[in-house]
């Protein structure tokens, strides 16, 4: 584990955390354009670890809780914040909001509001990689809720049958809205779930970016080498409610306390100090820099013009000359 890696991991996690904390503030100020906004505070290590294992030409598909995936993939914080505020400079022209935030140029194929709705899309991206030989691997992020949707099964099966370069990463934050993982599905590891498709499966600590990185890197390398898909279960926790106004009354406070004690950023910082990967100075620099980027992002977003009315009417169809 080198210094640079640790810097990057921490940087990603801190940027995600700050972005989402800021998002909540902006939301409380009534500045978001949509009511739909889900933050991933507590889960930052998964996004960081996965995206660090990806190559620039790889693809990622994301979820309703997707800020972290785009940030760790290199998304521009200003354009992201602008999108949330419905500004013309937002990634989706201020029309997609948090739940559809996307930077296609980064190989990011979209955050998606339908749980499981993007899993088939990931299969298609991986299929096209196989057919075209473009060498890309597609990483499909999804929550534990998606595991019980039929598309999860169809996609795993199809990816396994064609031995597609795809990595399926379940961000198991223990809840699908109010439904605990333990009531959504029998207590079965992701390894065993993957066995049903004769494909590798692995369960990792989702609070540890290094563990996530290692699992993802191995799966991506395996996929790129033609070995087919892998299913990764990254076990983590959403520290806050499902969305604004959810006090998580369905959760045991003791459970929450235990998980909060495993804050991925705090854990990583402690370990990085311990192992000598980072100095306190490094950390301060990273945090200060992230803070500055966020300030700038918010300023950029606030100063950007609102999406003009025309934006509502554009892009229903892609112009086609052929016919």
């Amino acid at each position, binding site marked *: 584990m080198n210094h640079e890696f640790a810097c990057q991991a921490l940087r990603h996690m801190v940027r995600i955390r700050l972005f989402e904390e800021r998002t909540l503030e902006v939301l409380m100020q009534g500045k978001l354009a949509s*009511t739909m906004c889900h933050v991933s505070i507590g889960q930052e290590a998964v996004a960081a670890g996965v995206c660090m294992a990806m190559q620039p030409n790889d693809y990622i598909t994301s979820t309703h809780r997707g800020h972290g995936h785009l940030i760790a993939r290199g998304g521009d914080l200003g354009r992201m914040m602008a999108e949330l505020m419905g500004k013309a400079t937002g990634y989706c022209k201020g029309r*997609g909001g948090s739940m559809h935030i996307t930077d296609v140029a980064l190989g990011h194929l979209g955050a*998606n509001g339908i749980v499981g709705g993007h899993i088939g899309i990931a299969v298609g991206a991986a299929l096209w990689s196989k057919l075209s030989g473009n060498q890309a691997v597609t990483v499909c992020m999804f929550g534990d809720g998606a595991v019980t949707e039929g598309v999860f099964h169809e996609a795993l099966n199809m990816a396994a049958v064609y031995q597609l370069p795809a990595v399926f990463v379940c961000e198991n934050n223990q809840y699908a809205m109010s*439904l605990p993982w333990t*009531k959504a599905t029998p207590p079965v590891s992701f390894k065993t779930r993957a066995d049903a498709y004769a494909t590798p499966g692995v369960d990792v600590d989702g609070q540890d970016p290094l563990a996530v990185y290692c699992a993802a890197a191995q799966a991506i390398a395996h996929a790129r080498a033609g070995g087919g898909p892998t299913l990764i279960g990254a076990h983590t926790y959403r520290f806050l409610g499902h969305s604004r106004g959810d006090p998580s009354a*369905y959760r045991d406070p003791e459970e929450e306390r235990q998980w909060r004690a495993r804050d991925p950023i705090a854990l990583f910082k402690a370990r990085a100090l311990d192992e000598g990967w980072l100095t306190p100075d490094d950390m301060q620099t990273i945090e200060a820099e992230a803070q500055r980027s966020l300030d700038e992002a918010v300023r950029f977003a606030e100063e950007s013009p609102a999406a003009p009315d025309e934006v509502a009417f554009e892009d229903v169809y892609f112009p086609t000359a052929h016919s």
Partner: protein
Amino acid sequence: MTMMMFRDALRQALREEMQRDPRVFLLGEDIGRYGGAYAVTKGLLEEFGPQRVIDTPMSEGTIVGAAVGAAMTGGRPVAEIMYVDFLAYAMDQLVNQAAKIHYMFGGQIHVPIVVRTQQGTGRGAGAQHSQSLEAWFVHIPGLKVVAPATPEDAKGLLKSAIRDGNPVVFLEHKGLYAIKGEVPDHEYLIPIGRARVARPGSDITLISYSRTMYLALEAADALAQSGIQAEVIDLRTLKPLDMETIIASVKHTRRAVVIHEASLTAGLGAEIASRLSEALFGRLAAPVRRVAALDIPLPANSHLEKLIVPDTARIVRAAQETLGYTVKETTA
């Protein structure tokens, strides 16, 4: 009468029917401890227990499928699908199974299920959480479709839907849960298949349902200021359509505007407009106008969203144009 919110009226209906009939049970995502994404089922788990209020895994197809199977064997399931958009995962179970089983199996069995779901705009919830898909369901023989606007109707229609022997798609509107209205204190049912005159008038008929009824009433208020008496019809049931009530009104007013939040093209307004144009051919003073959402997905942006869906001003304008309509000369 008691003043209560739409969501509370729905909850009363569920509670009363669950008390009345032990076969009635609820299933869906987050309907138990959480009380439903829009808080309709709050408290019912505590009252009726986990055998009657069943939190399901995220599996919309099998939620509806399971409702069908339970209904075929004696249960009276009420399934909740959190957003109508997610019914896209369950169209086989709803359309190929629930709607057809009674007919396909020669009448041997029927499928008394209610699929409660929620649709519409108003929260800037974006393209995948704001659709209004009633036209899909209205198109399918074997389904009934209900879309109440008031707490009173919501309660009375939900009770009727639960007692109906057929699959009923029960469409709530995300913008209506908190609106208030008077609800009778005694037990009552609102029959499926009957529209209601929400405001009488003689100059023009505004045909509405679900949230658009309120827009139509506002438009009628605005029109009244210039002396125009608009009659507002609240359809309440979308399938079967109560054409009798609609035609009776338009026969009288000779002018009609149909209003819905669903996309214009191939929306329910087309069905109503063409039936009216046929039934009252030569007797209309102006063409039936449709005020609907533009044929555009819905942006996750409250400001932009408003540009796409009907508002009071658009209804007033359409009504005024209809009232001022003069037949253009044929220029063959």
